[in-house]
Every structure is written in structure tokens, then in C-alpha cells.
């Protein structure tokens, strides 16, 4: 987990910095302008990365954190 969580830096690098390198309309990707397709692609990748982090995070296997809440 400790190493996996650094993957979460990728969306920031890709969206905030990477966008500068794909800032054009052509070629269209799936009918979208390249820069928009890049962002959409990274939104999907972000969800994938967060899923990877989520399922490998020991904090989430701790069922107590769900159960202890009723009080």
C-alpha cells in the first residue's frame, strides 16, 4: 500500500502538466478533440488507480470501522 498510494500522484501530473503536451484538436480520439480525450482518459484511469489503492488499503479490510459507527 505504501508504494501503491504514490500512483495517486499520476492524475495530478497528467492533468495539470501532461495536458500542455496534448493541447490540440487533431487527431480526434473516439470522435473527441485530443485534449478532451486525454482528460476523459485520465478521469477513467484515476478511477482505476483509486480502485487499486482502495482494494490494497489495509484500512478498508477493517470491518470494525464500519460497525463501530452506530453509536
Amino acid at each position, binding site marked *: 500500500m505504501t508504494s501503491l498510494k504514490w500512483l495517486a500522484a499520476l*492524475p495530478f501530473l497528467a492533468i495539470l502538466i501532461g495536458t*500542455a503536451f496534448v493541447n*490540440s484538436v487533431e487527431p*480526434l480520439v473516439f470522435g473527441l478533440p485530443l485534449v478532451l480525450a486525454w482528460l476523459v482518459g485520465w*478521469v477513467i484511469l*484515476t*478511477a482505476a488507480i483509486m480502485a487499486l489503492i482502495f482494494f490494497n488499503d489495509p484500512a478498508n479490510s477493517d470491518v470494525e470501522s*464500519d460497525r463501530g459507527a452506530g453509536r
Partner: protein
Amino acid sequence: MNSALVIIFLAAAVALVLGLLARGGNDMTLEQWTVGGRGFGGLLVFLLQAGEIYTTFTFLGGSGWAYGKGAPTYYILAYGCLAYTLSYWLLPPIWRYARQERIVSQSHFVARKYDSPLLGILIAAVGVVALIPYLVLQFKGLGIIVSVASYGAISSTAAIWIGAAIITAYVFVSGVRGSAWTSTVKDILILAVVVFLGIYLPLHYFGGYGEMFRTIDAAKPGFLALKPSGEYGLVWFQSTALLAALGFYMWPHAFGAVLTARAERTFRRNAVVLPLYQLILLFVFFCGFAAILKVPGLTGSDIDLSLFKLSINTFDPWFVGVIGAAGVLTALVPGSIILVAASTLLANDVFRSLRPQTREETVAWTARGLVPVVALIAVYFTLQGGSTIVALLLMGYNFVTQFFPSIVCSLMRNNPLTKAGAFAGVAVGVATVVAVTLSHSTIATLAPFLPTAIQDVNVGFLALILNLVAAAIVSLATRPAAVASAERA
């Protein structure tokens, strides 16, 4: 009465009834009213967290910006995604501390963390000033939607009064539970409507997405990519996306939504799903893009009407009514969440801080009693009109972002900031935002000698940097005394 109007009224009635029923058998203590007794499961928290994205601002503004400005609208997609990534680590510690200390609002949280009621009052006051324009914007959107979708049968003024009355009623009765219940209907409706429009309009008018974007690119070269420099250019996009991602959960109502959760795991799971969920915004953009060549000529604030103008040209009145109904709910639900947050801040964090001996029940009743007052203030500003509201909202976003350093530092094991430091940081940051907004400064006008890449940075960063500098200096100056007193104790 036309069929569009019937459907819009039906949606408003459903929202009212659901909102009132949401109370269930719960006693409305402050904790129940404001944060739903911290008993909300994954889905309701998800909808409250997502409620932030689908406001009238995104529904009308997202398509309006796609129509009027083009590529800069992509930033909405970017900042949400980054904010959700941050939320995975930001929200669980906030929620844990808030549950342990029975905290009901953002300023309550900060006041407790820094052991400073004065800091709490500052955060609450700034929070309310930021929230009112946000509420005004929802009302304004509501008025536009109803008057356009009812083909002018209902004036926007009448719509604003009716809408304000509905949310005042159900927020007064059910508090945040009303917002959560109505948000289920809202999300289902908006999802269906936006996905349908985003697929249908481009296919109907252009035959496909590729064709649509090629046609737009040919008609308006450069419109679909960011400008390399200048206003709304690449650097603006980068800095604004980052700034908005930091500010996202600093809105008092977004912060309040976090406190409704029953379990902290909810946030981590939602951090996985919410980025995908906000892809719906893509379909909102498609509506705006489709409108560019089909209903040309809208300028200024009229660009926000592009989605409705195109819909009216395309569909039967009853379906315009369905779109209008979805639009009405995107105003009512976030409006009600804001109303809960603002009333709680005033009652719990200003009123109670000034009179600490006030009983819990009195605070709860004060919060509910303030609901109509806050709503009336917002209606007043809405009907006053003027473009100053947009300026106020931009100011509001920059305001709440100033809370970020204090709140994040307070989550650290050894908080580097002292209470005086946190106070100085927020005060300096907010003062900078006011000065910069009122003087219409940009980094380019303030520092013409800097390279253009830096000049295009969103001026909100200047406030954030001054905020950090002030917080650091004052914390250093006040630190030794704090450590000494801690050691004595």
C-alpha cells in the same frame, strides 16, 4: 397551462413532499438536523458528495461555457477528478475527529482543532459570505430555467419565490435529510436527461461526435483546444484546476456533507466511483457544443441558455418540461444543502460562540429559525440582479480555498500552525482576495515584469501564497510561547 409547466410543477411538488417526509420519526436535534445524526450510508453520502457537481452552475454553466468559451470548460472535469483523489486521504481523518468530538460544521471543526472560538467565528463569517452568492446563483438558475422551459408562462421572479419557499419548508422540517432524499430523485432525473441529450443532440444534428467536432473546428479554429497563453489559456486551466481541487471540500456545505457519513470507508469507496460519475459532465459539454452552430448568437450571460434554446428548437414542450424539471432539481437540492450549512454556521458557530452558555436546543431552534432569513437574503440579492453576483461567486471560491492550509495542517500529528498563525493566514488570504477582486487585478497587472506563463496563473494563488507566508511567520513568532505553556501544563 402548457405540458412543460405541468411537469415542472410535478417535480417541484415531488421534491417538497419527499423533503418533508424525509424527517421520518427523528427528533430534530442539531446533530440530526445538520449532519443527519451521522447515520447516512454509502449511497446517500455519495449523492450528497456528488450533489456538489450537478448544480445549476454545471448544468447551465458547463454547457454555457462549452458554447461560449469552448475548451476552458474542460477544467470542470479536471478539478473534480483531482478533488476526489485528494478526498481519499483528506476526508477520513476529518470525519474521525468530527465524530469523536461531535462536530457539526466546518468552523466548529477548526475552532475545536485550534482551541480558538475566535478563529471559528472568522471561518464561519467568511463561509457564510461565500455561501450566499452560491445560493443566489442557484436561485438565479432556477428562475432562468423555469421561465424558459415554461415558455414564459411563469416569470423568473415567481419561480424564484416558489423555489425558495419549497426549500425553506423542507429544510426547516427535515434539515439535511430533506436534501439527501430529494437528491436521489434529482440524480436519477438529471442523469437520464443529460446522457440522453448528450447523445441525441450531436447525433441528430451532426451524425456523430467526430463530425460535430470537425464542423466546429472548421467554423471556429482553435476553439476546442486551450490557447497557449492569455486569458482562459493553458496556464489558466492548470492553475484554476488545481486551485478548485484544493477548494472543493473547503465549501462549508461540502464539508458538512462529509459529516453525515456513518463510516469512514464510505469516502474511500466514493473516491473510486465519483471520478467516473462526473464523466456525466462530458454529456453536458456535448449539449453546449451542439448548440454552437445551431443556436448561434448568444453572448454575455445568455450563453447559459444555450442548452435550453437548443432543446426548445428540438423537442416537444412536454420533453422541454422534463429537462426543465431536472434543471429545477439541480437548483433546489444544492440550494437546500447550502441553506442547512449557512444556517448552522450562523447558529452554532457565531451565535453559540458569542453566548457559550446557550442550550443545545436553543441552538438547534436558532439554526432552523435562520433558514427563512438566509433564504430571504438570497432571494433579495437574486432579484437585485447585476453581474456582481458572478464576481461574488468567484470571490467565494477563492475565499473558501483560504481554509485549506489551516484545515490540512490541523490534521497533521504535530500541527505546524498555531491558532494565531491560522487566524493570520485566513485573514490575510481573504483580505487579498477582496483587494484583488475589487480592483480587478490579475498577476499580469500586479507584476508586469514576470514572464507571461506566470502572469496567466489564477490570481487566487497569490492569496493562497500570502496566506501560507502569513500563517508561517505568525506561527513561528507565537510558537515558543505555545510550547512553553504546553510544557507547563
